[in-house]
């Protein structure tokens, strides 16, 4: 039987390629993503721990122990014991700055990177940069960079080949420069150790630990691999949200793949009805026939999964080489890849079961009858309607429950509700998809003969069209749900950031006693010209006490300016009766309070606002003049809307301010949040996009198989004078009809689920009000691409149809 299955696959590869493709892509996703995560995690593990990237053993100590380097180097079997020496510095060239981790290059076998140009730094005024950093800073060998916030100039003497890590960017410095900063070897807390060629790693490990036990009880030696793995798994653990998305994506692609595979099987089996009848006629039992087809499915699963695993590795290699993680080596998680392979085979067999059961119910006489009418006109069952209705009612009920009141588990309920509703919609597909297709068909038919033919074709196999559209629906639904959810969370968090830390950057000048003094004229004018700074506002300031004498609180009192609101990005208004304090302080103050300064005292109403920090308060400019004797323009607020400029702006402002304590603000924190959120949205869309791709392959499969079935019709149309291009157009329209229905329902469901998720999240955490947001360009773009891709999916089937010779209409059966 297996042998028969094999010969069937070998003789009619075309019939099976589409099924195999669907399996291969699902498996490629599973295998590829696990290779990708493992490789990225390994790369992060090494990149975040460069000094031990090449080490055999690592010694670390909680407290520095003088002379320990010699002790470790003296242990037999240790070839090199290199103390890790590093420092963090921001270096600047013009308006561009980079935060670098600077290492002293260890002796050769421990070096993790190679020089591509120049030499390693030796002098105190020399530096080497990784090529990625040198490009970012736009400097080359022989040119200089400056240490931010100082006049120290360093000359670039070498370039290295390692990529910029996600978190760490590297450069190299010299012992001479570190020593200037007070570093000595005795301050080392970590050593990278390389063994002698013939040493036994476990013996040396024990020997070092035995030695350390007496000399430095707080130090210990470990296998470097263990330390690296620990780091890698910590990185992987930090990517938890990422992992969840990955699993959702994987599950989606498997389910969509399963629908596609089942659909393909149904069609191929329908095409082989005669063959099945013949088998039965020559005496095969129904069970034998079933087994035979399931064996075929298993074989397809094995081949498809094998291709998938290989393709997955290939894709992971491509992505990691693009992201540079491949520099640190490819990690192959065997168990996960085996799991992906197993899932692929299982999915193929499970997806085949129902079509095989249905398709093999063929009476022997059917082999002898002429071709059956391919069109099925089956009414969707009452049972389906009932089950589907129950699922929807339960799902909607649970959804209403989940958003009805605050509940820490609201999100879980919402997910359950969404699952029930999805099942209802997907299972109920045959109830409404044919209707929707008819509706679309009615619109399409008006445009002429070719659209008419296309619309007719789409409606002739409602079950098939429904399954194809359903797969797309599921995929698009998931993508839109995730997009809406992440877009809403992003909007909410960014909105929250805007409210919580409205002032991007603040520059404040004081004299030695802490009294506000005017910002020097040249600084004031130059601040506005720092690249990235869009707007500034100067605020007059003076010192004042809030409240009555004994518990009075000393604050910097700011005078409101008309342009404050536009610079901070949230509404700010202070009337002559009000004083703004930060919300935390406002809670502990009476509703109205005396604000007392050198010039006078005014009683004002307390209003909480996040524009001011806890050591500030804001009153109207008129009131400030009454309270403070002199109110110099001592505080300047800067608006930096493009947060990717954060580091450059901060370095630029710090240099002008010449004293770090004068510069504060939320810019760096906000920029970190923002880039993280953007990354999350991009990854989510990318991963779930795979599910859409699989669904589109389903569209292409269904069309391709229909084209095979309709060879005669295509020939007839060509004989009657339909141009080849019109035949292609017809198939494109067929693809678009199915795609539009799938995408529309998917989008509607996704938008609804996104709302549910956001509302439930809001109910689960009363921390903040989440606002519903749709990233219009992103979502529309994705939908546009899906529809466009569906049109593309008709390309191959269309080409095949157009190649049909007119004489094929007349060929014998």
């Amino acid at each position, binding site marked *: 039987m297996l042998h028969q299955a094999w010969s069937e696959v070998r003789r009619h590869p075309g019939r099976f390629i589409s099924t195999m493709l669907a399996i291969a892509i699902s498996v490629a996703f599973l295998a590829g993503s696990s290779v990708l995560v493992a490789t990225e995690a390994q790369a992060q593990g090494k990149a975040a721990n460069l000094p031990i990237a090449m080490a055999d053993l690592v010694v670390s100590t909680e407290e520095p122990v003088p002379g320990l380097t010699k002790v470790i180097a003296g242990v037999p079997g240790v070839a090199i014991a290199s103390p890790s020496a590093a420092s963090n510095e921001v270096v600047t060239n013009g308006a561009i700055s980079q935060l670098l981790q600077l290492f002293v290059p260890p002796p050769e076998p421990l070096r993790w990177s190679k020089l591509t140009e120049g030499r390693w730094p030796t002098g105190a005024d020399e530096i080497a940069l990784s090529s990625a950093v040198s490009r970012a800073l736009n400097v080359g060998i022989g040119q200089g960079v400056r240490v931010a916030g100082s006049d120290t100039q360093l000359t670039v003497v070498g370039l290295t080949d390692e990529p910029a890590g996600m978190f760490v960017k590297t450069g190299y410095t010299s012992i001479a420069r570190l020593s200037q900063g007070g570093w000595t070897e005795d301050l080392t807390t970590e050593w990278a150790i390389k063994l002698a060629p013939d040493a036994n790693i476990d013996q040396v490990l024990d020997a070092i630990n035995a030695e350390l036990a007496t000399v430095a009880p707080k130090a210990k030696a470990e296998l470097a691999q263990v330390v690296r793995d620990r780091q890698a798994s910590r990185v992987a653990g930090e990517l938890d949200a990422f992992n969840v998305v990955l699993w959702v994506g994987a599950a989606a692609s498997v389910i969509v793949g399963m629908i596609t595979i089942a659909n393909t099987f149904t069609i191929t089996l329908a095409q082989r009805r005669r063959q099945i009848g013949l088998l039965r006629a020559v005496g095969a039992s129904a069970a034998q026939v079933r087994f035979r087809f399931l064996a075929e499915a298993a074989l397809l699963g094995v081949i498809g999964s094998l291709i998938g695993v290989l393709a997955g590795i290939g894709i992971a290699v491509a992505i990691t080489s693009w992201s540079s993680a491949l520099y640190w080596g490819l990690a192959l998680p065997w168990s996960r890849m085996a799991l992906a392979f197993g899932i692929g085979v299982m999915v193929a067999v499970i997806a085949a079961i129902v079509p095989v059961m249905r398709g093999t119910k063929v009476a022997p006489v059917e082999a002898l009858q002429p071709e059956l*009418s*391919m*069109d099925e006109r089956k009414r969707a069952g009452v049972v389906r309607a009932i089950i589907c209705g129950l699922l929807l009612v339960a799902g909607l009920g649970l959804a209403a429950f989940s958003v009805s009141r605050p509940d820490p588990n609201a999100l879980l309920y919402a997910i359950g509700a969404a699952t029930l509703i999805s099942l209802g919609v997907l299972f109920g597909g045959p109830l409404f998809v044919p209707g929707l297709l008819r509706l679309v068909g009615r619109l399409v038919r008006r445009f*002429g*003969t070719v659209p*008419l*033919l296309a619309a*007719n*074709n789409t409606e*002739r196999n409602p079950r098939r069209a429904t399954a194809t559209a359903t797969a797309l629906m599921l995929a698009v639904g998931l993508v839109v749900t995730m997009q809406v959810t992440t877009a809403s969370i992003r909007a909410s968090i960014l909105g929250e950031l805007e409210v919580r830390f409205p002032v991007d950057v603040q520059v404040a000048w004081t004299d030695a006693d802490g009294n506000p003094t005017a910002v020097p004229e040249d600084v004031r004018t130059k601040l506005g010209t720092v690249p990235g700074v869009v707007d500034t506002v100067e605020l007059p300031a003076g010192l004042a006490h809030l409240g009555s004498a004994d518990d009075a609180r000393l604050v910097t009192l700011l005078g409101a300016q008309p342009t404050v609101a536009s610079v901070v990005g949230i509404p700010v208004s202070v009337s002559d009766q009000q004083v703004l304090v930060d919300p935390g302080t406002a809670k502990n103050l009476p509703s109205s309070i005396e604000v007392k300064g050198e010039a006078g005292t005014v009683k004002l109403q307390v209003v909480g606002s996040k524009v001011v920090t806890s050591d500030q308060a804001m009153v109207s400019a008129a009131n400030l003049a009454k309270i403070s004797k002199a109110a110099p323009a001592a505080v300047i607020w800067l608006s930096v809307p493009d947060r990717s400029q954060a580091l450059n702006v901060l370095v630029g402002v710090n240099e002008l301010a010449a004293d770090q304590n004068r510069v504060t603000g939320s810019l760096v924190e906000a920029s970190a949040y923002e880039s993280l959120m953007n990354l999350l949205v991009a990854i989510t869309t990318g991963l779930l996009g795979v599910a859409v791709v699989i669904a589109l392959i389903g569209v292409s499969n269904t069309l391709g198989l229909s084209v095979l079935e309709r060879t*005669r*019709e295509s020939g*007839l*149309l*060509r*004989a*009657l*004078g*339909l*141009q*080849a291009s*019109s035949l292609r157009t017809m198939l494109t329209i067929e693809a678009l009809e199915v795609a539009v229905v799938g995408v529309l329902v998917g989008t509607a469901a996704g938008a609804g689920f996104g709302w549910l998720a956001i509302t439930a999240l809001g109910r689960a955490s009363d921390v903040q009000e989440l606002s519903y947001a749709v990233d219009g360009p992103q979502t529309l773009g994705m939908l546009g691409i899906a529809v466009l891709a569906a049109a593309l999916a008709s390309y191959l089937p269309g080409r095949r149809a157009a190649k049909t*010779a*007119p*004489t094929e*209409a*007349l060929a014998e059966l």
Partner: protein
Amino acid sequence: MTATVAVDHVVAAQALTKVYRSGEAAVHALDGVDLGFIRGSFAAIMGPSGSGKSTLMHCLAGLDRPTSGEVLIDGRQLSGLSDRELTRVRRDQVGFVFQAFNLLPTLTAEQNIMLPLELSGRRADPEVFAQLVDSLRLGDRLKHLPSQLSGGQQQRVAIARALIGRPSVVFADEPTGALDSRASQQLLDYLRHTSQVLGQTIVMVTHDPNAAAYADRTVLLSDGRVVDDLSAPTADTILATMKRWGS
């Protein structure tokens, strides 16, 4: 070029050959055929199975390209035409009736009949349509799908479709092959009627001497060559000639 083509030949073949190759073996399905059909003629093509009848018809109708030689329709050479132009020739100048599977299953009888006109963006003359439908007795079947029609009705729909655009020539490959004798007779009567009354040129491939007898000319093929050409044959003369050529 030895054969001369009469000016009033609607369809003509000159030194037509068609060679099918499969590996080393070559089948000469057509081996130097020279033929012409004048306007309004009703010709039958006969010959033993495998003699090249269908192949000849496909080449004449622009469904297939000959290996060498020339086909002319309304005096226009088909050999130099692009696929697009050839398609247009089929659409506008040629009508077909095949043995079976003539109709698109998703279109109603009426839509099937109108298809060639719709494809060329022409409007059907309502009078011509009404006459056609009436004389083919399809009036009450126009809204039916092909699967709801009998074999004879399906062939009549196919004939209506072949005639509605008033093509230069109608080709029919064993149009009665799947029909019983009564339905065959009616169909052949109608074909003869269109050629005699409407001046429609018809070329029909058939196995059946009785069917060929409806035509006013019978061309006999054997091994890809024209071996005999009878005018106004009866079933008996055809049978006799066929016997002579050993089939």
